[in-house]
């Protein structure tokens, strides 16, 4: 039986056309973190590579930061907001469950009536969003897709938790994905390992805030209710990241049909400098490959980390338009996504 439905008419390929980032105004040095935990600047730097991070102020909302980053990405891509016909926002720190923040951002940008939705894939969120965007462009459901990774992780950080207080930061990174004549985004190697879904997680769900359940909430020293925060089993996650993610990164290179020698740039999720160093070693990246080390001044911004690092590398000249870059995100779920892209 022949289908009555016309075959889709998408673009032959997709590429990243532009990138933009937003970093909150307030810069928070390790000294500020040390007011709440027993630690040292030396320890934080040696175990994570982080010296400073940005924390968002009251006006730097998830939507506001996204609009700033998206505006830059739109300009960088040389398109107008009206040309965007899909908006994908990846975040775990937007506190309104409905409506999606994507609709608010699309409206604020003047994007007309694009498809708009949020996704939840933690630190792999950028790669998940990019993969969806590529699919939409190639399949023909959209011509220009805005993908934003955005977090206000400071809102979900327990400042007294030694394992996480120094790690997280806030910010937004955006890209425009559009049509291309040759492949600009390689095959994605992605997946999840749900057997490890408790190794990074929110302490309690919002449903526990129902009056009847209040007794189930964690309390602080003074008996006050603790706001939900992200906790993690640091060593378990570190081990998974250094061992399993190098393999996934290699698979992404293989799938794109290139070797480490063909790379110009490596942009891993900025989770921990030690994870980055370990992956560089395991992947045997040659000297000429420029490695994103944005974590030093940005901390771990989850879904925002890869586009933020990408923007900075392009802005500082560490990377250039047309470079071939390996990107890999990984985090709570545990989830991961790796692919090879051509930089805008």
């Amino acid at each position: 039986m022949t289908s009555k439905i016309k075959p889709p008419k998408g673009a032959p390929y997709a590429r990243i056309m532009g990138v933009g980032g937003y970093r909150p105004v307030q810069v928070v040095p390790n000294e500020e973190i040390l007011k709440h935990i027993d630690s040292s600047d030396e320890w934080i730097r040696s175990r994570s590579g982080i010296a400073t991070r940005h924390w968002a102020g009251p006006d730097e909302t998830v939507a506001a930061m996204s609009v700033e980053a998206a505006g830059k990405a739109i300009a960088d891509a040389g398109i107008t907001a009206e040309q965007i016909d899909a908006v994908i926002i990846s975040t775990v720190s937007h506190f309104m469950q409905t409506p999606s923040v994507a609709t608010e951002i699309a409206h604020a940008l003047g994007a007309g009536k694009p498809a708009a939705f949020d996704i939840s894939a933690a630190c792999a969120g950028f790669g998940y969003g990019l993969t969806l965007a590529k699919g939409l462009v190639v399949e023909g459901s959209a011509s220009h897709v805005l993908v934003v990774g955005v977090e206000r992780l400071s809102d979900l950080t327990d400042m007294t938790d030694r394992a996480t207080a120094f790690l997280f930061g806030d910010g937004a990174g955006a890209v425009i994905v559009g049509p291309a004549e040759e492949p600009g985004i390689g095959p994605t190697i992605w997946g999840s390992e749900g057997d490890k879904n408790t190794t990074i997680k929110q302490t309690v769900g919002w449903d526990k805030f129902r009056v009847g359940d209040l007794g189930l909430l964690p309390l602080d020293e003074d008996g006050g209710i603790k706001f939900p925060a992200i906790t993690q089993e640091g060593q378990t996650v570190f081990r998974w990241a250094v061992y399993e993610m190098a393999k996934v990164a290699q698979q992404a290179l293989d799938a794109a049909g290139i070797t480490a020698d063909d790379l110009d740039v490596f942009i891993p999720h900025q989770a921990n400098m030690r994870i980055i160093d370990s992956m560089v070693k395991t992947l045997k990246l040659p000297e000429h490959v420029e490695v994103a080390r944005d974590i030093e001044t940005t901390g771990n911004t989850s879904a925002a980390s890869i586009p933020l690092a990408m923007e900075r590398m392009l802005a500082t000249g560490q990377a250039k338009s047309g470079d071939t870059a390996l990107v890999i995100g990984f985090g709570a779920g545990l989830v991961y996504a790796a692919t090879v892209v051509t930089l805008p």
Partner: protein
Amino acid sequence: MAATQEEIVAGLAEIVNEIAGIPVEDVQLDKSFTDDLDVDSLSMVEVVVAAEERFDVKIPDDDVKNLKTVGDATSYILKHQS
């Protein structure tokens, strides 16, 4: 084939050298990873991952903290290698 104690120590020495840059001859049975060999908690995770590959053993997270010295790791691997 299962590795001997000497082979395990020599293998660990190479791993520690690779990860922490410690001269291989410094890696002796009585040496503590953190106190004597400058292998911090995260480098230790890398050492364990490399040792698992090399000696075909599984070293679960919970056991890692009991491996204080090169001797501890060597006995563990001797006992658990397949």
